[in-house]
C-alpha cells in the first residue's frame, strides 16, 4: 500500500484569488472571465491597452461594481459589490484619479482611510491612530490643514496612497497610480512602490505602461478584450 508523504510545509494560501470574474455594464461585457492568483508578498502587474477591462476588473475585485465569479483574500470569500467587506478583509484600492474628498483637509482624507478599522468616535483620536503614515510621506506633514482639492496632482496622489496605507492593507490594489502625473512625480510613486514590494504586502498594480509596471512587479499579466491574455516575466 503506497504511503503519501506529506509535504514539508503546506502550500501557502494565496493572498488574492480571482476566479472567473466578469463585469458587465448593461449589455456591454467589460470583463469576460478573468482568473488570476497573487501570492502573499507578491507584486503582480496587470498591463494592457486602455479600454480592455483592467480598471473594471480591479474595481470589481474591490467590490465597487457588480460582478460574477469569486474573489478570495487569504482564503476568505468576499461578497460581491461590498467594498466595506473588502476593506475589512484587508483589500484596499487606490483608484484611478484618486477620488479624494476635495473640501476636506489632507489630515481628514488620510484619517478616513482607517474608517472601517479604528471605530473611533473622536476625529482627533482616529488621527493619532494613523499619523504613523506620515513617516512614509513626510512631504505631507506641512500640508495637513490644507484642503485636498487645492493640492497639486502629485501631492494628491501621495494623499491617496497615505489614505490607503491608513487602512493597513494586506492586499493593495493600485489603478493607474501615475496617470496624469509628471515623470518626476511618477518616479517618486514608483520609488515608494519599490519600497512596498520589499515588505510583506501583496500588490496588484494596474498599469497601461509595461515599462513602468515591470520596474517593480514580480510578474505581469496582460489583459486584452476583457480577458487575461498572457503572463510576462520580469526582465532580469
Amino acid at each position: 500500500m503506497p504511503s503519501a508523504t506529506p509535504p514539508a510545509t503546506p502550500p501557502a494560501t494565496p493572498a488574492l484569488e480571482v476566479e472567473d470574474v466578469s463585469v458587465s455594464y448593461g449589455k456591454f461585457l467589460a470583463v469576460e472571465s478573468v482568473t488570476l492568483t497573487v501570492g502573499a508578498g507578491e507584486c503582480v502587474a496587470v498591463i494592457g491597452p486602455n479600454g480592455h477591462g483592467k480598471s473594471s476588473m480591479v474595481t470589481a475585485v474591490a467590490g465597487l461594481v457588480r460582478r460574477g465569479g469569486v474573489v478570495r483574500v487569504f482564503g476568505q470569500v468576499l461578497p460581491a459589490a461590498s467594498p466595506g467587506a473588502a476593506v475589512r478583509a484587508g483589500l484596499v484600492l487606490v483608484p484611478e484619479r484618486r477620488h479624494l474628498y476635495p473640501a476636506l483637509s489632507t489630515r481628514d482624507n488620510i484619517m478616513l482611510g482607517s474608517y472601517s478599522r479604528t471605530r473611533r468616535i473622536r476625529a482627533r483620536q482616529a488621527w493619532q491612530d494613523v499619523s504613523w503614515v506620515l513617516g512614509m510621506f513626510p512631504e505631507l506633514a506641512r500640508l495637513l490643514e490644507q484642503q485636498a482639492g487645492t493640492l497639486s496632482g502629485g501631492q494628491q496622489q501621495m494623499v491617496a496612497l497615505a489614505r490607503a496605507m491608513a487602512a493597513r492593507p494586506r492586499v493593495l490594489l493600485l489603478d493607474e497610480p501615475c496617470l496624469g502625473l509628471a515623470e518626476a512625480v511618477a518616479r517618486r510613486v514608483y520609488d515608494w512602490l519599490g519600497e512596498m514590494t520589499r515588505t510583506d504586502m501583496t500588490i496588484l498594480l494596474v498599469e497601461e505602461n509595461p515599462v513602468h509596471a515591470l520596474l517593480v512587479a514580480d510578474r505581469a499579466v496582460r489583459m486584452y478584450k476583457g480577458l487575461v491574455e498572457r503572463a510576462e516575466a520580469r526582465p532580469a
Partner: protein
Amino acid sequence: MSEFLNLLAAGLTSGGIYGIFGACLAVWFRVCNVLNLAVGDFAMLGAVGTAWLTQTAGLPFGAGIAVALAGVGLVAWLFDRVVLHLAFDRGAGAHGIVSVFFYTFGLSLLLEGAARAMFGTDVFGAPAIWPGPALAVADFHVQRAGLLVIALAIVSGLLLWAYLRFTVSGRAASACGESVLGSRIVGIDSAKFRRRIFIVTALLAALFGIVESPITGYTYASGPTLSLIGVVAAGFAAFRQPGRAVAAGLAIGVAEAMLGGYVSTSYSDVLLYAILFCIIIVRPEVLGLGPEPA
C-alpha cells in the same frame, strides 16, 4: 429699549425657524449634494399630526408626539428605501442627483395632498409643550414657545456643528458628499449616511413643527414656505454648514424684525428676497452657480 428687546425676541424666534430649516437642508446637502424640498412638509406633518392626534383623536399629548414622530420617521424611511435608493444606489450618478431634487419636490406635493385629505384645510396648532402666559420682564415680553424655538434652533445647530467638526462619523458623512466612490473605497456606507441623516432631519423638522406650531399655526400647505425660508438660511452657509445656517437664520430673523419694526413691515419680505439675490450676485458659488472648486 423695550421695543428693541421685543423686536429682538420676535426676530430671534422667526430667525430660529429660518435657522433650523436651513440646518436641516445644509446637513443633508452636505452628505448627498441635494436640497430636500420636503423638509418643511415634515414639520407640517409633525405639527398637524400631533394637533390632530391630541385634539381630534384624543391621544395624550406625549403619545400624540410619539406617534406623529414615528409616522414622520416611517415616511422618511420609506421614501429613502423606495425612491432615494433607486435614484442614488443604482449607478445613476449625476442624473440621480438631479432626479432626487425633483423627487423631494414630488414628496412635498404628495405630503401636502395627503395632509389635506386626512386633516382638511383647518389651521392646526399642537398643544404647547411649555404652557403658560408670555414671560415678561418689565416691558419685555417673550412667548414660552418662542424661547423653545430659539433654544431648539441653537442646540440643534451646535450639535450638528459638533458632529461634523469633531467626530469620525461626521467627517465620513462629509466625505460621502465629496466623493461617493472615494468614501466607498474606505468602507464608508454612503447609503447608510444618506438614510440616517434624511430621517434625522425629518424628525428634527417634525419636532420643530410641534414646538413652533402654537405660535403660528400650521395648515396642510405650510411646508413649502418653511422649506423656502430654510433655503435662504442654508444659502448663507454654502448649503453645507448647519451651524452657520442657524446663525445666519437668527441674523436674518433679527434683521427682518428690526426693519419691520423701525422702517416698515412691508419691507421685511422684500429684505428676505433681496438677501437671496445678493447671494446670487456676490457669492454665486454657494448656490452652485459659480465656478467649481479646484
